[in-house]
């Protein structure tokens, strides 16, 4: 996620809700962009980070949240009781509830090809393998350190 590239256009919100619910309603999406404020002059997208030790799953009283084989954190909607403990537990605020939807609205990565990433007009949202995380920083490091080699 590239915070500096995010413009706050909210296309991600709308297409997420459309993909999952077939409606035009950003409050039914699993991603939200926080607009700039006096203190934080950036647009900041908030979406599930697919934690390896998810707080939401820890706090779920009926163990409805689980990690699938591909590492995606998913909700078993049959056993979920809609208590909202997960939304309170998530330190990022990346789980959402809507009055018309009993279960949590949470990013499922669209099965591997996220709609939000496809539509993001500036490339602020990208899907990366955990193995590639930090790759850009490592390349910067490599460039910086190479310069010092005599």
């Amino acid at each position: 996620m590239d915070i500096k590239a995010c413009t706050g256009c909210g296309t991600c919100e709308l297409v997420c809700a459309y993909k999952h619910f077939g409606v035009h309603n950003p409050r039914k999406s699993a991603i939200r962009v926080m607009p700039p404020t006096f203190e934080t002059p950036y647009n900041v997208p908030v979406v599930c980070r697919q934690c390896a030790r998810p707080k939401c799953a820890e706090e779920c009283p009926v163990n409805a949240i689980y990690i699938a084989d591909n590492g995606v954190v998913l909700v078993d909607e049959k056993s979920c009781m809609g208590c909202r403990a997960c939304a309170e537990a998530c330190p990022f605020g990346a789980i959402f509830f809507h009055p018309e939807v009993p279960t949590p609205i949470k990013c499922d990565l669209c099965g591997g090809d996220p709609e939000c990433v496809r539509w993001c007009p500036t490339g602020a949202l990208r899907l990366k393998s955990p193995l590639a995380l930090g790759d850009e920083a490592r390349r910067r490091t490599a460039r910086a350190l190479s310069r010092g080699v005599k």
Partner: protein
Amino acid sequence: MAAIKGGYAGRIAWVDLTKRQVSIKDVDPVFAREYVGGRGWGARIVWDHVPPEADPLGPENVLVVAAGPLTGLLVPGAGKVSFSAISPETGYYGDSNSGGFFGPELKHAGFDALIITGASKEPVYLWVEDGQIEIRDASSYWGMGGLEVQEALRRDLGDSSIKVASIGPAGENLVSIACVNCDWRNAGRCGMGAVMGSKRLKAIAVRGSLDIPVADPEALYEEAKGAFKHVRDHEFARVLRKYGLAWYIDWSNENACLPVKNFRFGTYELHEAINAETMLKRVVTTSTACPRCPMCCGKFSYVRSGRYAGTAIDGPEYETLAMLGANCCLPTVEDVVYANWLCDNLGLDTISAGNIIAFAIECYEKGIIGPEDTGGLELRYGDPDCVFKLLELMAKREGIGDVLARGVKFAANKFGGGSERFAMHVKGLEQSAYDVRAAPAMGLAYATADIGAHHNRAWAITYDIEKGRDTYTRDKAEKVIYLQHVRPLFDMLGCCRLQWVETGLSLDYYAKAYEAATGIKVSADELLRASERVFNLTRAINVRRGLTSAEDRLPDRVFEEPVPDGVVKGYKLDRAKFAELLRAYYELRGWDPETGVPTRAKLEELGLKDVADALGL
């Protein structure tokens, strides 16, 4: 007529602030279709419900806050909401629109429009949520800045996702050029903030969780794919994505149409200090976009150090950079950022504010006013503190600020001494940031715009640059009329026009999007017809309020003082040729070539027989 299947939220709320009553009505399908939405709805409601003699700042004026059928949908830049009323600046029909997320939120709360009538005795704000509207006490918010009150409301209501339209002290104090803040964006023009202030309406806070119905969501989605790709990949969209509308500072300077020192000069020697490159280098933290816009023409500025450290603002965009920056000769981009913040938080329109301040400074330079009029304040170009002080005095209506707060037309009448000749306004609305001395079509656009000298109706200057900067051919009148129908159409649909202007996204796309959203089959020509209907209706409102062709005029300066600099040095408009062009415009519009009043035949052709009857034609 069958019910409409989508696009519209389906309900309009009438809020009577005198009686403190709210009544909610279903949208009438015929009305919806004939006037589309946004400014179109505003115009019809103003025509129907505001008595011709009503005082713009009295309880009889009606403020229409209307989104359009595309607002909030998957359409590029579909976030527009219009504020319409009789304007305190001109005394005629006025409207102003804002991008941002307020419009979509209103529709998610179940309303296409709020119609505010009467006036409250005490300060109030509206709380709008999912089909419910409450009129709430706002005495603790009265006096707050237009931006600060939004933060305060979100804090007190306990949700940062609430969207707010608000006014600052200028609106409260009935300053003619007061704007409405919609989060970081503004409905700046025509004094809609003063109309809100006259009703003691400090803010409208909205939270909506409802779906916006769509007749054929699949078709809308498929159309959107192509449209988004078109805009995203367009060459000029890339420029705007990087530089924002500030890019036009260099363009205007090159074409010598940048307003400098009250439209005396067409180029600014320090333009590089306030252009897009400099903004990017010094203050911009990120781009900002209206809902679902791949172009993101907004640039967010944050000053990290120095005198203005901590100042944060969405902007400045071209008009603000030109009117407060170039026109008042501010020396650095940080000065403009701070002036922009002051305007937004005080609740002043940056365009009118920059115009009026530059005018006051010219009057001071020429000795028409002196220190005895300004309370000892020395007025001079290039002095940021002078600009900041005048903004504050205007918002508070203190000293000379009380005169300037009523607009440049009023100030010129008050100051006299020939200052009327360089009071840069049409019908009382201060001219926006294009000098027209070498742009007859743009001059015609300013002279004939229903709201006064604003570029939103017809940005015809590119046509002048293409076809000749001193030509008055009939095609220019045709072009202005065409633009006056296309551009305001977007304000009716509830989306931004720039995707059409800058990337050539076709009108057929919008017709298809409208059809997918509403289920009403319509062609681009029919939509343009609706826009023509609205333009004739706003003309009728103005005629009923006493407008004559004498007010389809331009300031004397553009006919008398040649451009002293730049690529069009020596150019000025020719009165006789311009009068001919205006006459051609009336004829092409089907208006009386002498009086400029729409003919009965034209009004009937547009389905406005009742309007023709009311005008006694």
